[in-house]
């Protein structure tokens, strides 16, 4: 059950070197920038990071990569106009890349939270991203076997939480938050707004508090870099 922490530093305490950390967000929408900054300050390194992208501009995930803390990144779309820190590390051979089609990435994260051992997906069949993977024909269609993607920690940004960790998100910033919250051993959420128990309508809760371990309120969103339109 969720605890409420005073600040991002306290919220990310205990993330050890070598941990696998899922980080929510699609580009900068839903990216928990303050939690990532606290993670950088914590000194944790040799991390495996799961995110759709590989950092935008100079803040958040990009700063974590620039600081050399990411040993491996699992993502669908690393190369963007403003992914220069990743690009540099990648070309220098200083970061490992596991490239996963975006829907397989989402479904593998969902499978981890849902206790599914593996699943057959049509996405990627016949492509280089399915090389070496088990394939099967089912009812005349070809599928690739994919496995769950779990994490020690998930860093997620939501819009609002109650004190039990029930979460709602805002517009397309929802993206990976709900599935990452369910796929990590410890889920750490930054929210703009924290409300009392009972203040959220039970019908509209997107992430039930059972998936949330730590909540920290970060009222003023950090400035977002002007790097929009930088690809998928």
């Amino acid at each position: 059950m969720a605890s409420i922490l005073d600040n991002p530093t306290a919220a990310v305490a205990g993330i050890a070197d070598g941990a696998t950390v899922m980080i929510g967000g699609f580009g900068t929408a839903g990216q928990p920038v303050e939690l990532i900054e606290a993670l950088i300050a914590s000194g944790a390194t040799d991390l495996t990071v799961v995110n759709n992208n590989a950092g935008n501009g100079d803040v958040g995930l990009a700063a974590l990569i620039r600081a050399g803390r990411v040993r491996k990144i699992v993502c669908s779309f690393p190369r963007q106009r403003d992914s220069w820190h990743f690009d540099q590390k990648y070309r220098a051979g200083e970061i490992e890349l596991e490239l996963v089609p975006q829907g397989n990435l989402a479904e593998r994260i969902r499978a981890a939270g849902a206790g599914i051992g593996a699943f057959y997906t049509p996405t990627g069949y016949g492509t280089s991203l399915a090389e070496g993977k088990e394939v099967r024909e089912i009812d005349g269609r070809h599928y690739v076997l994919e496995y769950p993607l779990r994490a020690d920690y998930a860093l997620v940004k939501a819009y609002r939480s109650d004190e039990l960790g029930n979460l709602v998100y805002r517009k397309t910033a929802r993206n990976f938050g709900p599935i990452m919250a369910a796929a990590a051993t410890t889920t750490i959420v930054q929210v703009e707004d924290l409300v009392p128990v009972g203040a959220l309508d039970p019908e509209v809760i997107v992430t039930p508090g059972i998936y949330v371990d730590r909540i920290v309120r970060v009222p003023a969103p950090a400035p977002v870099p002007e790097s929009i339109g930088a690809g998928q």
Partner: protein
Amino acid sequence: MTGESRRGLGKDELAARIARDIPHRAFVNLGIGLPTRISNHLSPGSGIVLHTENGMLGMGPEAHGDAVDLDLINAGKVPVTELPGASYFHHADSFAMMRGGHLDVCVLGAYQVSARGDLANWHTGRSDDIPAVGGAMDLAIGAKETFVMMNLLSRDGVPKLVPECTYPLTGVGCVSRVYTDLAVFLIEDEGVAVRELFDCTFDELVRLLEVPLLNRTREGDR
């Protein structure tokens, strides 16, 4: 057919041509890049609902000025707007919607399309390229119909509709139609059929491409 000196349709003419083939009230995903232009040619009364794979149905036009909300972006990470009747959902639900075959049409750009409808649009395969796939492979195989929007020839004049793709594949046998500046092609079980010609003849296409072509134009060879 165009007032420009180049032959065939310009990008916006092509976008308008594709827009005409999208059924009213369809659920549609327009890939980032060129296909995004199609949205400018959808009539407001068409009832077409746009999907963006980062978790939204009912996406409206690009946002400007005060309407920019960085929590509301499209798959290309451009701020967009919300239309009445929109809905939001998480990434697994969004890609389940695609993979489950619920979108009527998806329009994608391409490096190459093969005669069997294989699509190559995600990676040049060059060793110095950093690969990035995004949602391309899910989009390619997910929708009921996958249209490709591209110039028929590369900048170097090499045909992009080919017997076999030489670029890394995005999806196998997934393309149903190819809309190009010079012609509209249908990928059918019997082969590639030319449905419509823009400032060129069927025989010209036959000479240009290494792919065997069927003539299914309404007017026959012009």
